[in-house]
């Protein structure tokens, strides 16, 4: 069984490495995701962001504009996730006062 596990692990890793060869190079201007039009023919989002981020939001940092303005819903969801994590820790770990002499 152990050999099968290792073989599965190695073959899956080899598959991932093989798949990574198909990725475009970093900063490749001709990659599909950086084209003006997506393969389906619609307007590409990334080129719009790069062209219009400063004009739309008057902010030099493009990443901030995308994070907080274009993708505002996403960041609101992230913040809600953090708040939920804090509330869950509060609910699970905070003990009631009357049980304070119980062993932990």
């Amino acid at each position, binding site marked *: 069984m152990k050999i099968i596990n290792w073989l599965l692990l190695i073959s899956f890793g080899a598959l991932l490495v093989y798949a990574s060869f198909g990725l475009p190079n970093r900063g490749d201007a001709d990659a599909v995701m950086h084209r003006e039009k997506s393969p389906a023919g619609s307007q590409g989002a990334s080129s719009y962001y790069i062209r219009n981020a400063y004009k739309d939001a008057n902010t030099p940092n493009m990443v901030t504009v995308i994070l907080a303005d274009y993708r505002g819903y996403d960041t609101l969801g992230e913040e809600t996730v*953090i*708040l939920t994590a804090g509330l869950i820790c509060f609910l699970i770990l905070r003990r009631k006062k009357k049980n304070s002499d119980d062993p932990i």
Partner: protein
Amino acid sequence: MIRYKSNLIILMVSRVVSPFIMLFALYVIFHGHYSAGGGFQGGTIMAASLLLMRLAAGREIAQLQFRTILGTPLGSIGVLIYFGTGFMAMLAGGEFLNYGFLPFAGFQAAELRSLGILMVEIGVGLAVMAILVAIYDDLLEGYPHD
């Protein structure tokens, strides 16, 4: 169990370093428009400064700086700042989270967006800072304090 012993060197170094970490956190939050940074990163650095005082000075002194009971309410207030910014834009006639419609007079739409991004980043930073400290305090709950 390892008992905490007060160490003068650690306490003094933490006292000197902690305000500078806070200042750097504020810089990271408010300079997110121009360089790398933003609410999440700045809030984490702010929480690091508060946790440094909690680790170095012990529970009693750290309570003077940031009380345990403040953690969860401040996190909720941070989320409410974010939500309120989006909702204010919606009340003023735009879409939800469309900062160009924020009801502040004398600004162009692009400047209003910049302002809205700043308000949102402050909300994110507040929430992240409070929740990280609250999680630390919750994990410490029930541990014998000195």
